[in-house]
């Protein structure tokens, strides 16, 4: 077990490298994707510019290298377990990026990504539920099998505009980091920092106006790693609260469509793109209800304005998560 100073130095180096890999390799990767014709239309902008996709491979590379550095410093097997979960989620996403898969594929296949967490037993047998903890050694396993597909698909479903998924993840990582600092292990906190650094590096290219889209490979790996970190740091409820806007989006969508479908399979869109490139809520009764459609019920908005609204909602839910952490801190120390 390394001492505290070695851990801090390891984390700082891992984080800087994770950030820099995105910054250095992404421009070349963007050129490569353009050359290979792996581009999609950015439909919400004039002339629908072609944007390369997916950026997931470089994001994964930055996370893997950053976390492996940390593994060589700490020897912590939890890092390998979380990396396996993240990599499996990435593979599922990259299949979906390049092949048209049915709606059940992502949530179904993501169950596989949960398995390393169970094999390496990164979970505690006690579930932290803010007001105390419950001993559920058997129930925890199905809970993990559900959590990773839910986290992956929830983040995937929020990736509707430039930068939203990455920005949303960055904002909602802060309550997890604070919760881990107060109630979790130092070694898990050390794993979270390079992930945040990688997200920040990727955000430089994904932010509005996007130079690259993460694709399903990028969003699924973000969601799966977020879920895995929440489980490892005993911050499951905090993660649920921080992710509430995205959960709300999934809930609204599923409760209106009443089945698991891909967005491309929808006959009616939740929003309408105007000639001036603003968006407005669809008036079609059969159109699915989504978070963006609810935002647009108050009037038409530009893409950038919608992105800012979603970030504000993420900040609001993260604030609720922080209040919950405070509540837990008072209860546990009282």
């Amino acid at each position: 077990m390394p001492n505290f100073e070695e851990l801090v130095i390891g984390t700082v180096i891992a984080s800087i490298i994770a950030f820099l890999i995105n910054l250095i390799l992404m421009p070349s990767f963007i050129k490569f994707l353009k050359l290979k014709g792996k581009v999609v239309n950015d439909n919400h902008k004039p002339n629908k510019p072609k944007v390369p996709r997916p950026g997931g491979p470089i994001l994964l590379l930055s996370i893997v290298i950053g976390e492996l550095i940390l593994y060589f410093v700490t020897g912590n097997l939890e890092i390998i377990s979380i990396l396996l979960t993240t990599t499996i989620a990435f593979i599922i996403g990259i299949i979906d990026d390049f092949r048209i898969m049915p709606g059940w594929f992502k949530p179904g296949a993501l169950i596989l990504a949960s398995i390393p967490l169970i094999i390496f037993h990164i979970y505690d047998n006690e579930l932290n539920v803010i007001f105390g903890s419950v001993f559920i050694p058997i129930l925890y396993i199905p809970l993990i099998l559900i959590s990773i597909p839910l986290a992956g698909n929830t983040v995937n479903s929020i990736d509707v505009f430039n930068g939203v998924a990455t920005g949303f993840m960055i904002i909602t990582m802060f309550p997890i980091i604070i919760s881990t600092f107060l109630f979790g292990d130092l070694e898990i906190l050390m794993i979270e920092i390079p992930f945040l650094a990688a997200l920040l590096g990727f955000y430089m290219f994904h932010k509005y106006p996007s130079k690259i889209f993460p694709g399903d490979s990028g969003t699924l790996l973000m969601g799966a790693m977020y879920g895995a970190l929440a489980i490892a740091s005993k911050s499951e409820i905090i993660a649920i609260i921080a992710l509430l806007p995205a959960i709300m989006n999934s809930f609204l969508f599923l409760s209106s469509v009443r089945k698991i479908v891909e967005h491309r399979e929808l006959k009616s869109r939740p929003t309408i793109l105007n000639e001036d490139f603003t968006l407005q809520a669809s008036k079609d009764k059969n159109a699915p209800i989504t978070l963006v459609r609810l935002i647009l019920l108050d009037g038409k908005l530009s893409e950038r304005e919608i992105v800012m609204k979603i970030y504000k909602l993420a900040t609001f839910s993260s604030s609720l998560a922080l209040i919950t952490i405070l509540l837990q801190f008072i209860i546990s120390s009282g």
Partner: protein
Amino acid sequence: MDRVGVGKEMNFLDLKFFILFMWVLVMTACIFIIFVIAPISKFQIDQNDSLSFLKTSFIQATLAVIIVGILIIVLNKFKKIYLLKKLSSKKG
């Protein structure tokens, strides 16, 4: 090419209220788990019997699933009320 200013008058509190309502539901579920579901294991007759432990876990899991079901029903009702009010205020 942003249309800055379009929709600036939007009152955004409504969606935050929706999220706040969801937070209250999550916290209520946590309270129920701690004060109702978790203490069930205290009633387990033989603490070392694995079959008895499995039975208790099954009862706890069933109750947890019921709670999640109730939360989804409540949230669905809230969504309908929210949309109705939102759309009627738009028409008004």
